[in-house]
């Protein structure tokens, strides 16, 4: 009925247009090998951040364990695609990663999601650490601390782009649906949500598992694109990196996460030449940005095309007033 409505078409065109522009830029060499890495890093970060935003921003559950789920996805895809070094193997790996991660997320989610706030944060942090240590110890399968190398490079950037778009689509569709609203209600007021007939455990778990599954996708693509993974890539710091993107973009704003991933990706390019000073600059930037924009770039609002028009409209009126 409304499958072909204006908004959907608008976003579809935007997604395809972006792809074509990127394609053009890559084929003309405008995006060199180096900027392609930046592009892919941004796209993977989009996948990871949007997934984490679903957990933190929409269901309101404070998870610090995203890196753990990412690791499961990365290792599953890495191992399987080393066995079957072709696209079939990669997809098998991604699907395997999603399934495995979802199972783990379900097992840990059901008992821990009744914890509140920072207690949940600690529990999820613990889960991620347990996952990582398990990987270190499964020497035969995962090659332990030395990690896997020589993973076939199959996830070329267009594939990563497609997955990023799919992830965003799934998360946005979910959040803008009745179950999604139920999930958001839990964030707003758990007791009231329950009194409205919402099975809070169920929807918290759905958001958690869905978020974890997207982390697995991000991890799998990471493994395939970079060819090398080690347990050390999936520490607490990685979870923090993703959390920073989510908060920086605006908690509960999918477009915010996308923009933040892009901004931070580009910032990184600019900061690289600063050597060891760069982390100092980055830290200062983080502090200053949060002080001046504590709710993130977009707050909990979404960037919309109509909103953009509105913004320009308003700006021009301000100008006119200024003239008077």
């Amino acid at each position: 009925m409304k499958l072909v409505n204006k908004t959907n078409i608008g976003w579809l065109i935007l997604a395809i247009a972006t792809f074509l522009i990127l394609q053009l830029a890559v084929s003309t060499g405008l995006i060199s090998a180096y900027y392609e890495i930046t592009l892919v890093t941004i796209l993977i970060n989009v996948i990871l951040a949007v997934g984490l935003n679903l957990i933190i921003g929409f269901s309101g559950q404070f998870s610090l364990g995203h890196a753990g789920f990412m690791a499961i996805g990365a290792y599953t895809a890495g191992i399987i695609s080393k066995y079957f070094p072709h696209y079939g193997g990669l997809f098998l790996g991604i699907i395997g990663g999603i399934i495995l991660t979802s199972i783990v997320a379900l097992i840990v989610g059901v008992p821990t999601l009744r914890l509140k706030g920072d207690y949940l944060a600690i529990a999820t942090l613990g889960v991620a650490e347990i996952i990582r240590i398990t990987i270190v110890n499964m020497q035969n399968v995962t090659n332990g601390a030395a990690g896997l190398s020589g993973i076939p490079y199959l996830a070329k950037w267009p594939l990563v782009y497609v997955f990023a778009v799919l992830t965003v689509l799934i998360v946005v569709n979910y959040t803008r649906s009745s179950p999604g609203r139920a999930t958001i209600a839990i964030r707003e007021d758990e007791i009231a949500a329950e009194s409205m007939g919402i099975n809070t455990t169920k929807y918290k778990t759905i958001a958690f598992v869905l978020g974890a599954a997207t982390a697995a996708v991000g991890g799998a693509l990471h493994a395939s694109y970079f060819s090398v993974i080690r347990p050390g890539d999936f520490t607490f710091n990685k979870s923090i990196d993703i959390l920073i993107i989510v908060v920086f973009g605006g908690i509960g704003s999918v477009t915010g996460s996308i923009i933040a991933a892009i901004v931070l990706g580009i910032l990184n390019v600019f900061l690289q030449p600063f050597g060891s000073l760069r982390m100092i600059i980055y830290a200062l930037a983080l502090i200053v940005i949060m002080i001046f924009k504590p709710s993130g770039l977009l707050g909990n609002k979404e960037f919309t095309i109509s909103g953009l028009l509105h913004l320009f409209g308003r700006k021009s009126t301000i100008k006119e007033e200024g003239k008077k």
Partner: protein
Amino acid sequence: MSLLEVKKLTKYFGGLSAVSNVNLELKSNELVGLIGPNGAGKTTLFNLLTGVYQPSEGTIDIENDGKKESVVGKKTYTITDMGFGRTFQNIRLFKDLTVLDNVLIAMHSKSKVGTLKSILRLPSYYASEEKMKQEAIELLKIFSLENKISELAKNLPYGEQRRLEIVRALATKPKVLFLDEPAAGMNPQETADLTALIRQIQKDFKMTILLIEHDMSLVMNVCERIYVLEYGRMIAHGTPEEIKANDQVIKAYLGGE
């Protein structure tokens, strides 16, 4: 048989018995008041009925298709599904969401929209979404909130927030509606409007309502029967006239003129 039957309900908080040995009964399509001094246990009773707290002792049964079902031990959302709707003494709207979303959320559990269907955006999803929206707007119209559907709940004036709470509770399609001090913080004029509204919804929705309120102009006007709690115990029960004349109630609650 009555719609709701509460027997020997007791709740301890540590050594304090906030509700003790309470019996209460609601029939279909009744409007009943629950009054009592501050701290008497009225809100606690609501919390027990809706599964927010678990009773220490006693039974709570609801009639469902001619069968008696116990709600004790059930989760709040199950109890809501079984037909108990409520509002909160301290307003608990989803503050950062729009008025419409507040109502839609309350309709979710009865709408049975699946997660997968929503993600895949099948055509049937759009149909059910549209239907829910229409229903929600219908409800909001009754409370004259239809012009505010895209306002954030927190930006509504106090009185409208109270009304939205009631709409939200109604959206869960309850058999019994528990209202906890709906007129608190309203001025006499607003209270009078609310009184009319409560009467109307009870008539239109053929609903059973249990009402906690300290504003006697509201309680005495709309309630057919009134229960009085004091120190967790039911000290009186009767028509508004009987209650107004009850010495014990006057002494503990109403105060002499």
